[in-house]
């Protein structure tokens, strides 16, 4: 109980009558990376903003480090850090000037600041760029600088809204290694992401859809939600294979990924012949179907498509 740094209970937020967050409950423990996943418009950004104390809520309770954010938003601000999708860097200030600005706003003492600044720049590989204007940094470096600014006051809780969107793979990897080192220091990280391969790196996941919680648990638990198995079929035209079998009985979902098709089936032994027949009918060459371990993406696509068909019917 005591190591739960975030407790959200029945959180609801409406924008002009439209429900953005719908009776949402979850918690986050000290030193954990909690991933917020869901399609655009699921309410991830709204949830993070409410936790950061910059947005009011219509119902529910949000406790951060034991303080009620909805009642006293200012009380938690010195202990948390929030990095919006568009991190507000001053592009006409240098890397160091940006960091020092946020350090001063958070009233970090001079000596701590210097030490922290060196450490953060070192960890993100930006020591060489101290005197470069933030506007002249690459997209990935801007994010890293944003995180450095967000971490200068050593927050207990870090809220990151899609920090890796538009960032190259190398920088993404660096960003994640920064996050892991934070967790090691006992910082809790709430991160929303549109990249599902990143979701596997989180300790726990909160899957959101239209403001509601669809799933809350570890990535492994999420994978267990998938009935049946995932089959991978390589093909020069997986799109054609997808249309050939999608919607058939026992085919729970079919997703084209590069030059392979991922098909979720209820019973692989029973459906193999059925799939082959469908593919041959489409007249597209295809490889032998292989059973693979379900990825978060497979489950995600399956769960969301289930929701959509439920709503459609």
């Amino acid at each position: 109980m005591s190591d739960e740094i975030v407790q959200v209970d029945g959180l609801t937020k409406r924008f002009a009558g439209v429900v953005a967050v719908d009776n949402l409950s979850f918690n986050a423990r000290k030193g954990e990376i909690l991933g917020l996943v869901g399609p655009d418009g699921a309410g991830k950004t709204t949830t993070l903003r409410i936790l950061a104390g910059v947005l009011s809520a219509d119902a529910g309770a949000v406790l951060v480090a034991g303080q009620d954010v909805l009642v006293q938003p200012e009380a938690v601000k010195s202990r948390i850090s929030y990095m919006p999708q568009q991190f507000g860097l001053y592009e006409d200030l240098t890397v160091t000037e940006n960091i020092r600005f946020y350090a001063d706003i958070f009233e970090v003492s001079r000596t701590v600041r210097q030490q922290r600044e060196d450490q953060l720049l070192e960890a993100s590989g930006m020591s060489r760029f101290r005197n470069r204007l933030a506007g002249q940094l690459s997209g990935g470096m801007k994010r890293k600088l944003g995180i450095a600014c967000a971490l200068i006051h050593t927050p207990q809780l870090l809220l990151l809204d899609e920090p890796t969107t538009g960032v190259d793979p190398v920088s993404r990897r660096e960003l994640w290694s920064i996050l892991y080192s934070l967790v090691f220091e006992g910082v809790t990280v709430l991160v929303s992401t549109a990249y599902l391969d990143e979701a596997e790196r989180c300790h726990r996941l909160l899957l959101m859809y239209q403001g509601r919680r669809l799933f809350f648990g570890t990535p492994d638990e999420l994978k267990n939600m998938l009935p049946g198995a995932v089959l991978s079929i390589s093909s020069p035209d997986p799109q054609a294979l997808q249309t050939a079998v999608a919607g058939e009985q026992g085919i729970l979902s079919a997703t084209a990924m590069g030059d392979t098709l991922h098909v979720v089936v209820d019973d692989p032994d029973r459906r193999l012949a059925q799939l082959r027949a469908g593919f041959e009918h489409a007249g597209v060459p295809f490889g032998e179907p292989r059973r693979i371990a379900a990825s978060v993406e497979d489950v995600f696509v399956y769960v969301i498509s289930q929701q959509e068909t439920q709503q459609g019917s």
Partner: protein
Amino acid sequence: MFDRIWCMIVKEFLQLRRDKYARFRLIVPPILQMLIYGYAATFEVNRVQIAVMDFDHSQESRDLLSRFTFTGRFEVAKVLSNEHELKSLIGSSDIPMALKIEPGFAELLRKGQTAHLQVIVDGTNSNTALIAVGYVNQIANQFSQDYARDRLNQMMPALAATVPQISLEQRPWYNPDLNSQWFFVPGVIGSITLMMVVTLTAFAIVREREIGTLEQIMVTPIRPFELILGKTIPFFVVGLADVVLVAVVGTLWFQVPFRGNPLVLLLGVVLFLMSTLNVGLLISTLSSTQQQAFVLGFFFLNPAFTLSGFAFPITSMPKAMQMITYANPLRYFLVILRGTFLKGVGLGILWPQMLALALLTSVLLLASVARFHKSID
């Protein structure tokens, strides 16, 4: 607390130092505007081009018309021989006025009757027309007075000596030559300052909202008043520097005297800057993009100039309009500027204006603080 305000101020000046265009914007346009207003803003009517039609060709008619060119206020640009030319002339050319003397002008005068001088004027620009007709009136009056005295002198010299007369002696105080630059230059200091400070402040905050830094700052423990002070103090300093710059250029270049106490003016400037900063702040809380801020700023600035007494006297406005001027900081600042520059009066006279500016500042500040929340919904 002061550390946070201080770091906001430092940040603002660092940004200003890097922004070459901002430095240009703070120095060149104000000076340019001062020069333009100083030279171009004038109510005097000089060298009015006139056309004359003298159908009498008498000594009297020539005498009257020559008096017009003599003053320097009028220049005879055209001598017309018939009335058809007149219509096209006034309608199409730069000649806004024509004088016409009918045949028999001199004969009527000699008989002691009333003779007519017809003035045709282009009334499109009513102000210029009014002033020019006023000059014509003066010249015609002078002519008829002189003519009457001459006649009386010839016929009854003894009586002529006893005719009483009022002679007008003009003694304009504070501006003996009625130099309109003296009237406008202090006013320009006020209007340039208003424009600079309101737009700079509004834009500076809205820009932070646009690039996302405002949201970033809001999630920090900074208090709203620290944020407001940190954002406005730099523009207070910049505004003060601009006032000094424009005032020095204006007084040195146009030789406008400064007769009052500089400290009284300084107090007025400080109060005025605080009220205009708050106008900018209020605009910034009402707009989410720089475009909106621009439109709102324009919406405020234009009436603020018109209803300030900068060019049009407030006392001549309808009562309702006069009421609006009381909410206009520029109205009070202009009185302080002209009072200290030209009249040399002190706080004993100007305290109501100072008080009004202080009150306006407090009301505007309360309004901005009420509107300025540390949240984004």
